[in-house]
C-alpha cells in the first residue's frame, strides 16, 4: 500500500516532467511561428491549440483512444512498425498529456513574444542575425517571466489532469495510475485516509508552484521596460 502510494506519485511527477520537457522543445518553435507568422491560416492552428482549454477532457480522451486503437491507421502503424501500443500505456499518457497541455505552454510564450517591441527583432536582423539567432539570443532571454509561467503552468496542469488520463490510461497501478485518479479511486473504495494524503500533496504542490511563479514574475516585472 505504502509503496503503491509512492509509485503512483512518482508516475504522476514523471508524467509531468516528461510532458513539460517535450512541450518546452516543441512549444517554443510553434509559439514563435504563431507570434510572427502572417499566414492567414494561422488562426486555425491557434484555435486547435487552444481547444484543450475549453473542450471536455473526455472528448480529447475519446478521440485519442480511437486513434490509438489497432483498428485505426495510426494505432496499427505504430504497432506494426515500432511495436508501440499507446492505449493504456505510459507513452500513450505522455502523448495525451502533451496534446492536452499544449495551450498552457504555447500561449504564454506566444504572447510574451508578441509583446516585445518589433524593433528588437528588426534591430537583430539589421545586425546580420538569422531568425534563429534572434530568437535564441534576443527574444527568448527577454521573455523569461513568460517562459517560467509556461513551464510551471504546464507542469501543474499535467499533475492536475484527470479526464484524459482516465480515458486513455485506464488506471493501471504502477503503469498509468496517477494521483488525481487515485484520489477518485480511493474515495470510491471509501479509503478516505489515502485519498486525503493524495489530495493534500497535490494541493500543496500546486499552491507552491503557483506561489513561486507569482513571486518570480513580481520580482522580474521591472526587468523589462519599453524605453
Amino acid at each position, binding site marked *: 500500500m505504502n509503496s503503491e502510494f509512492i509509485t503512483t506519485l512518482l508516475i504522476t511527477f514523471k508524467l509531468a516532467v516528461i510532458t513539460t520537457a517535450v512541450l518546452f522543445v516543441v512549444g517554443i518553435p510553434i509559439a514563435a511561428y504563431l507570434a510572427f507568422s502572417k499566414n492567414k491560416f494561422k488562426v486555425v492552428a491557434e484555435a486547435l491549440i487552444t481547444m484543450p482549454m475549453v473542450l471536455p477532457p473526455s472528448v480529447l480522451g475519446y478521440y485519442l483512444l480511437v486513434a490509438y486503437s489497432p483498428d485505426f491507421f495510426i494505432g496499427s502503424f505504430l504497432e506494426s512498425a515500432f511495436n508501440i501500443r499507446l492505449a493504456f500505456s505510459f507513452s500513450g499518457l505522455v502523448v495525451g498529456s502533451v496534446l492536452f497541455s499544449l495551450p498552457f505552454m504555447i500561449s504564454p510564450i506566444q504572447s510574451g513574444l508578441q509583446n516585445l*517591441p518589433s524593433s528588437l527583432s528588426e534591430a537583430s*536582423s539589421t545586425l546580420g542575425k538569422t531568425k534563429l539567432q534572434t530568437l535564441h539570443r534576443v527574444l527568448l532571454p527577454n521573455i523569461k517571466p513568460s517562459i517560467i509561467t509556461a513551464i510551471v503552468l504546464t507542469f501543474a496542469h499535467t499533475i492536475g489532469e484527470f479526464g484524459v488520463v482516465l480515458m486513455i490510461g485506464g488506471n493501471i497501478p504502477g503503469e498509468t495510475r496517477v494521483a488525481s485518479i487515485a484520489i477518485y479511486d480511493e474515495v470510491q473504495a471509501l479509503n478516505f485516509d489515502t485519498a486525503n494524503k493524495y489530495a493534500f500533496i497535490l494541493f500543496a504542490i500546486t499552491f507552491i508552484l503557483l506561489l513561486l511563479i507569482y513571486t518570480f514574475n513580481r520580482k522580474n516585472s521591472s526587468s523589462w521596460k519599453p524605453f
Partner: protein
Amino acid sequence: METLLIEANFRKKLFTTQGEMILDVQFSIKKGELVSIYGPSGVGKTTILRILAGLTDADEGEVIVDGETWFNSLKKINLQARKRPVGYMFQDYALFPNMSIKENLKFAQTEQDPKHIDELLTLFDLKELQNRKPTMLSGGQQQRVALARALARKPKLLLLDEPLSAIDPAFRTKLQNEILEIQRQYGITTLLVSHDLPEVFKLSKRVIMLEAGKIVKQGDPFEVLGSKRTSGKVQFMAEVLKVESEDILKVLTLLSGNSLVKVAVRDDDEQQYQPGDKVVIITKAFNPVIQKI
C-alpha cells in the same frame, strides 16, 4: 566624378492617420555623403530608411547600393535585411535589455573586433557604463549606445532615425560633433531622418525635403530650407506664459527655446493674449548684438 553609393527609386502605398498616401521617391547619394531627410512627421521619412534597410518592402521600384541590387520589384530581387551591410539606429533605440552595453556592441559584429568596440566605447564616452544593462541608462546614454552599436559592424551605410531627439541641448551639440567626426574618420555614407532644423543645418551638406510622400526639394540646406526664411528680420517662436497689465501696456512673459523673455505690448483689445498662446517675436535684423558662446 564622385561615385554613387545609393540609387533609389521606389513607391509604396502607406496607411497613415490622415488616410492613404503614396510614398514615391527617387534619389541618389554619393559615397561618403551625409544626407538628411527633413519633413513633418507622418510623411514617410522613416519608411524610406526601413525600405533601404530591408525591414519594409516597397511595392515597386529599385534600390541599388554600391553597384549591387538590393531590391528590384521587376526582377523579384529582395535582399534580406540581415544580408544588407547597414547600421540602423532605431527611434526607440532597440537595445537588447538582456545584454550589457558591451555585449550589445559585440552582438552587432559578425567578425569579432574587440579593438573597434573599445574605440567606440571610448568615442561615445561609454567606457564606464559598458557593463551596465540598457535599462540602467538615461535616454541620452541609450541613444549613444544605439549609435555605437549601429557602427560596430562597420556598415557601408548608416541609417539614423531621429538620432538625437532625446538628448538635452548641451549634449546634443557634443553628439552632433561626434557624428560629424565619425563621418570624417570612417567616411560612412549616412542618411539621417530629422525634423529638427538646426540639426539638418549643422550635420548635412545636402537635405532631401519630403512632403506627403514626395520629395519636394533637395540640395544644400541653406538653399532648400533657407530661401524663404532668409529675410531682414529675426524671428523667434515663443509661447505666452503670463500676461500682466500695467497702465496702458501689457507685459507678456514669453518662453522662447529655453529662455524667458519679457516683452511689453500695447494694451489692445483686438490682440488679446492668453497664457498658452503661440506667438512669433519679430525684430529688425540690421542691428542685433551677436556674441560668440
